[in-house]
């Protein structure tokens, strides 16, 4: 039995199963919902299987076609990939349960194939070790995400989707030009081989600039964040959750991976670190301030995403001297944010379903009438603010620790101010949720599964506060942050 688990091709299943399921949903629309739920559940099990396998045998590497790099494409998973895959599987499953109740018949037959293909793209991206292959997965992901945003219909959603598509394509093209330069400079597109062959030449600087710009645009880092609020706010609630929790993290993961493996060892210059840290700090402050100013709930949550992404980039200046702590903090923050933000958007979806609107000022005694949803929002808020116990607290604590140790008082100040501003907008929403609105609105019932999906995700974010040690040791498989790396 043990042999079965470690020999099974979990990595391949993670990619092929959603592809196949998506196509079957397309052929057989009536089975779409059932098939979607079964598939996302199986993906969760497969990730668990992969984790077991990796705990046993270390990093996972698979040469597709039997050729091996540089001629063929390699699949590769280490601790960081595993963390992203696990996040995708768990959050994806919760959102699937939510979506089963959220979408009606016609919308449902459109939603499920698109979501399953998005899932396949995410898995393929986290498992890939080939930068051109990653480009194709980015496009798959981008088209699926745009189509999902446009499902809502109407002027806002279509406008948001169009802006999202244009910026996603721009980011991908910049990334592709970087890939072209790297290939022609070093004769391979495999990350591991590039890490060996790359040297400090103008081509590498150009590639870093291009790919960095493209990935920063896709990750919505200030000032390239303009496309995110319209897209995330006007999409259907489960789609907003998917985008903020998962899709935005994918480009961050690639940026991190390329930085650690290919660019950092030779470029490693103060300038890049400082720039990224500065952008992150401005994202935190600007995003939080904008969130405070919003009158619509989903826009508030979207700007909160902009701010939280900024925290991830604060790890860059800290990593110069305290690599593992800073990167682990960023990884933990990414995981907690995924759970918490998804919970928030799902809770917002419940509120919109309930009251027919998402104006914050008119949230009419939600705490009494939708206690589960209100608790979900509050618990998710705990993680976003960085209060103990929660995953957000662990991430911020690690980062504060690193900043204090290096005497980076400016970053400490940014983090504290960011936390205070986050508390501001979270409590603003909760405040209105407790009180009676001026105008009473007619309410519709919210299916229980939708409320529970949101609550369980929020509980997960809080639970992460207790799981720091096991999660971080899992992330350490394969040593993704390169503490003990020796370059040949």
């Amino acid at each position, binding site marked *: 039995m043990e042999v079965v688990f470690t020999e099974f*091709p979990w990595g*391949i299943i993670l990619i*092929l199963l959603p*592809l*196949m399921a*998506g*196509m079957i949903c*397309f*052929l057989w629309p009536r089975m779409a919902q059932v098939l979607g739920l079964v598939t996302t559940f199986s993906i969760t099990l497969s990730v668990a299987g992969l984790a077991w396998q990796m705990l046993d045998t270390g990093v996972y590497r*698979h*040469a*597709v*076609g*039997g*050729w091996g790099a*540089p*001629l*063929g*494409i390699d*699949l590769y998973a280490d601790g960081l990939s595993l963390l992203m895959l696990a996040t995708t599987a768990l959050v994806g499953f919760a959102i699937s349960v939510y979506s089963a109740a959220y979408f009606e018949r016609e919308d449902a037959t*459109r939603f499920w*194939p*698109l979501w399953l*293909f998005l899932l*396949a*793209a995410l898995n*393929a991206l986290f498992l890939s070790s080939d930068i*051109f*292959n990653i480009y*194709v*997965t980015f*496009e*798959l992901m981008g*088209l*699926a995400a*745009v*189509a999902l945003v*446009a*499902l809502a*219909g109407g002027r806002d959603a279509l406008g948001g989707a169009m802006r999202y598509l244009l910026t996603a394509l721009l980011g991908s093209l910049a990334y592709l*030009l970087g890939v072209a*330069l790297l*290939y*022609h*400079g070093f*004769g*391979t597109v495999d990350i591991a081989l590039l890490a060996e062959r790359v040297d400090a*030449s*103008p*081509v590498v*600087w*150009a*590639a870093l*600039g*291009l790919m960095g710009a493209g990935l920063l645009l896709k990750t919505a880092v200030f000032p390239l964040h303009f496309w995110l609020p319209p897209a995330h706010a006007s999409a259907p609630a489960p789609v907003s959750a998917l985008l903020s929790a998962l899709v935005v993290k994918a480009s961050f993961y690639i940026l991190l991976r390329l930085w650690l493996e290919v660019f950092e060892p030779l470029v490693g210059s103060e300038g890049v670190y400082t720039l990224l840290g500065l952008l992150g700090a401005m994202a935190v402050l600007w995003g939080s301030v904008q969130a405070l100013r919003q009158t619509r709930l989903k826009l508030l949550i979207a700007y909160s995403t902009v701010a939280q992404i900024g925290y991830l980039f604060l790890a860059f200046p800290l990593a110069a001297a305290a690599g593992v702590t800073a990167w682990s903090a960023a990884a933990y923050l990414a995981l907690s944010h995924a759970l918490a933000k998804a919970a928030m958007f799902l809770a917002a979806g419940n509120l919109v379903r309930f009251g027919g609107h998402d104006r914050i000022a008119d949230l009419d005694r939600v705490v009494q009438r939708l206690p589960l949803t209100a608790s979900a929002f509050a618990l998710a808020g705990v993680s976003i603010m960085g209060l103990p116990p929660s995953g957000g607290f662990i991430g911020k604590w690690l980062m504060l620790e690193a900043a204090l140790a290096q005497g980076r008082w400016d970053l400490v100040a940014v983090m504290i101010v960011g936390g205070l501003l986050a508390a501001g907008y979270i409590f603003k929403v909760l405040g209105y949720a407790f009180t009676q609105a001026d105008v009473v609105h007619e309410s519709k019932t919210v299916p229980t599964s939708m409320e529970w999906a949101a609550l369980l995700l929020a509980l997960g974010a809080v639970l992460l506060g207790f799981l720091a040690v096991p999660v971080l040791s899992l992330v350490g498989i394969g040593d993704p942050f390169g503490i003990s790396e020796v370059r040949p």
Partner: protein
Amino acid sequence: MNWNRWLLLPLLLALTAGLSYAVLSLPDHAPGLQEMVAVKMEVSGVSHPVTAVLLNFRGYDTLLEMVVLLLALLGVWSLGGTALRREAPPGLVLDTLARVLVPLLILVAAYLLWVGAHAPGGAFQAGAVLGASGVLLLLAGWCPRVGLMAWPLRLLLVAGPATFVVMAALLYMFEGQLLEFPPAQAGMLILILETAATVSIGVTLAALFLGGRPQSDKEHT
């Protein structure tokens, strides 16, 4: 917006200059992966390097890109809206041209598919020609009454990527690696893949041109 443009121009010029400098710094002679491709091509089942790379060495990329094409169609259909239909009948020139060209285009597509094994050609080129013939038919006024045929149409659309995924899985089970073609049967397997891909690509491109989901007979006003 004028001052914006004057700010943008020098920035873009600087960008172009920097990128050009990076390009010019590349060595004059760099074989890249050409030698490795030439050596391994014998066991790849085809004798044209581009087809070998596309369908065998980097077949995984091709699998994903076929899904991208299908996904674009899914996106277009999920946006809703009706298919654009021509109201006036086509002129004589277009009508005759369509009648003459479409069978010719289908033949050319089949030829391109076959010749891809040892000369420039293959699934994508053939699929594009097939798609063009579909577009020509649509321009000439063909109103596909595909409501009754919805299921076969979807099957055709999915045939390419589905064959790829199924073959990838089967090859894993038999050969131990994803998409590892056994050298003896590689040529035939690749031809099967390419045929399914050609059909899918052609139908998908024509469907993309059509726009919204084709209407059934019942919905025609």
